[in-house]
């Protein structure tokens, strides 16, 4: 990768994407977006930022492919098993008090963590009265998530994670394996609605007792982090929970005084009144 994107080029590209395709990456962390643009240029064999701009302006298909590169689509079931253990022990029992439970998974990628949440709720006997709203920016992630199909190869790691998270059932009960893939059981997926929501431009659409948004904030700059935290605050019911990624922190956010810490290491917070 010898190509270089100057700051001016970077802003041009962000602007083209915003004006022509309606996706605003202005508030994303620059180091990461730049690196991903360079990877995309390598993949497309574009040697200069000018060529990238030219292709983006003239070819919608190039933009669709760029989306796959800009958004990070890496995820696991029961990623950070200790976090799921804390959810099991400290959060899920509190949700049981609500007659109807509403959960928002923001930035759900291809759905692995949403399915994990559904399993926790199932095991706590709460899934039948829960609705999980799972959103992402990237439509092709959502398509894959809604299909509920995952590569079989991953299931060994996911089973390990599940056991470490305190899972006691036979993990293979939650899916059907066929050839090289597995299909997550319909009874888990029935309670999940996948749809597109852009944390940058879209607004509050419901009220939740738990919002999970893990490893999404790291791709945002501090201003955007602040505005998304405000959106989550406004979307939580009083005393509702917010779970972030293990390395994400509310420490530097304007709004941190309005949350209390439930688990400092696993980054579980709770909205004050």
């Amino acid at each position, binding site marked *: 990768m010898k190509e270089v994107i100057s700051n001016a080029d970077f802003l041009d590209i962000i602007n083209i994407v915003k004006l022509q395709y309606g996706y605003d990456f202005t508030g994303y962390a620059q180091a990461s977006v730049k690196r991903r643009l360079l990877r995309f240029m390598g993949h497309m064999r574009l040697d200069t930022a000018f060529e990238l701009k030219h292709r983006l302006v003239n070819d919608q298909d190039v933009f669709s492919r760029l989306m796959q590169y800009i958004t990070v689509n*890496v995820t696991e079931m029961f990623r950070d098993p200790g976090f799921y253990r804390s959810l099991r022990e400290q959060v899920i029992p509190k949700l049981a008090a609500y007659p109807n439970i509403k959960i928002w998974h923001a930035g759900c990628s291809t759905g692995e963590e949403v399915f994990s949440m559904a399993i926790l709720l199932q095991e706590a006997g709460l899934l039948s009265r829960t609705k999980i709203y799972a959103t992402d920016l990237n439509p092709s992630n959502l398509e894959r998530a809604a299909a509920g199909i995952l590569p079989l190869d991953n299931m060994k790691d996911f089973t390990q994670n599940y056991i470490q998270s305190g899972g006691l059932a036979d993990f293979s009960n939650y899916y059907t394996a066929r050839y090289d893939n597995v299909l997550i059981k319909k009874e888990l997926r029935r309670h999940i609605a996948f749809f597109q929501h852009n944390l940058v431009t879209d607004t509050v659409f419901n009220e939740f007792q738990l919002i999970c948004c893990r490893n999404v904030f790291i791709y945002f700059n501090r201003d955007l982090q602040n505005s998304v935290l405000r959106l989550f605050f406004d979307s939580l019911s009083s005393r509702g929970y917010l779970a972030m990624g293990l390395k994400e922190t509310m420490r530097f956010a304007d709004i941190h005084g309005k949350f209390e810490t439930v688990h400092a290491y696993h980054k579980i917070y709770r909205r004050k009144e």
Partner: protein
Amino acid sequence: MKNRFDVITIGGSAGSLLVLTDILDIVPHHLAAPVIIVLHRLRNVQSEMGRLLSSKRRIIEPEDKEPVREHSIYLAPQNYHLMVEAEKTFMLDYSELVNYSRPSIDMTFSSIADVYGARALGILLSGANKDGAAGLCQIIAAGGVGIVQDPQTAAFEAMPQSAIAMCDGVQILSIEDIKKIIIGET
């Protein structure tokens, strides 16, 4: 004497742990430049790596947006890539493995080359793959200094060797000489 570096970054993989603890033992408290370490480590296992690396100094696993502070030693958290942003804050990244690794030394070195340019010192230690070589070359290309542990003294030579093969200007030094350079910065 004016300090030459605003940051010292060290990457290591297989066979680097003992060497690294040896180096960290002599990092003086009055060294202003932050030290940023990237080590290949196991995923999804909570480990006490920071304490293993040094009994004398606090090793910080930075959180996202944490400012890079002087007089501090940082370690890339397991299962995340660690980068530095232009305003000298840390950025964590959970994207694909790079060189089969997350954290990847290349990712950290490359962002440091972008941000610190000629004011960066990169050190690549023992390791069994080529992660870090391209990043070290970027540090050198940006005007910084790139050093590898002499492959003859490394438990696994692939990592330093790849950097030597990849670009000109890589300095090959013994651990004792690497320590002298770090102490010389104070």
